[in-house]
């Protein structure tokens, strides 16, 4: 049996008549114009998790994390034996919790990333915005050069893009540094 859908305004249950219509229909309760596109997942029974089996004989392999449980699969990353409880089926790979956590921390499993810092945007903003006020560029220009060099290889946006922002930031910061050097030189003279 499928879970019923609710109107997102009045939380009333939506009937069959408002589902999968290509045009807007009306919520039977509040009258709001609504369109609900449903998919087979709504009718899917939630599968229970596999219980791990207890190790019965000595010649059976045991789970690395639960020595009393029978191993069913090795981890695709580190090769450790895993019981049904420890096996994380993710992106068509079987991983142990440790490798999953490591993949998230080292950004090797892209689909686990929930955020990224955009160093290229930071560098460009730091190169451009202080230039309006002129004087802060004496500090920000070297910072921009540092950011560009330090984070050149760092992963940028998850949507692939060029390094044009880094390049522009570097050029602008370099020009600012050269100008300041010329100013200092002229003062020294």
């Amino acid at each position, binding site marked *: *049996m499928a879970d019923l859908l609710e109107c*997102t305004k009045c939380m009333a249950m939506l009937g069959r008549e408002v589902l*999968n219509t290509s045009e807007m229909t009306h919520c039977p309760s509040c009258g709001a114009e609504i369109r609900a*596109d449903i998919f*087979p997942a709504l*009718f899917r029974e939630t599968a229970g998790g596999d219980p791990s089996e207890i190790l019965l004989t000595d010649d059976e392999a045991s789970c690395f994390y639960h020595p009393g449980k029978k191993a069913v699969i090795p981890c695709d990353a580190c090769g450790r034996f895993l019981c049904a409880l420890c096996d994380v089926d993710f992106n068509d790979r079987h991983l142990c919790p440790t490798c999953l956590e490591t993949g998230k921390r080292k950004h090797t499993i892209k689909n686990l990333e929930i955020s990224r810092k*955009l160093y290229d*945007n930071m560098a460009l903003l730091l190169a451009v915005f202080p230039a309006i006020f002129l004087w802060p560029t004496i500090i920000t220009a070297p910072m921009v050069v540092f950011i560009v060099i330090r984070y050149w290889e760092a992963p940028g946006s998850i949507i692939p893009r060029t390094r044009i922002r880094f390049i522009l930031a570097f050029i602008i910061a370099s020009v600012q540094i050269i100008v300041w050097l010329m100013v200092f030189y002229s003062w020294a003279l």
Partner: protein
Amino acid sequence: MPDKQKIYISLPGKKNGLIGKNTLWLGKDHLLSIHSTGFSEHYRRFYYDDIQAIITRKTATGKICNIVLSVLGGSFMLAFALTSGILSGFYGVLAGLVIFFLLINWLLGPTCVCHVRTAVQTERLTSLDRLRTARKAINLLKPMIEQVQGALVSETLKDYNNQ
């Protein structure tokens, strides 16, 4: 040069907020919602296999904005007509700006809120705030979901009980 297959395809709709912007992208096996603040991006993924429903509801926000802008524009135009000199020019510019935004709002069409539902959450897709944009996005998203889950047959709808 070999053709690079796009990892993500952009969906229509881009919502600019005070702090950042929201965009939607179609991945190979999931829908990606990105909230970008300029210095960082935050991601939410909805796997096609998990999506149970997409619910779009029309809202009155667009209409209310039109009314407010119309009243404001009318007031400024009245002020423009009743004053003279620099003040009149000032009101004229304001009236022009307000009418410009009114026109933009009217052209963009009715507003809506769009939610995606899975077994564990009902999440709002912030970037789909206009009905026209939401329709286009859903028309692109539906085939991807149906490719993974299969199309819903009418007999299955009989399992949806009315209570």
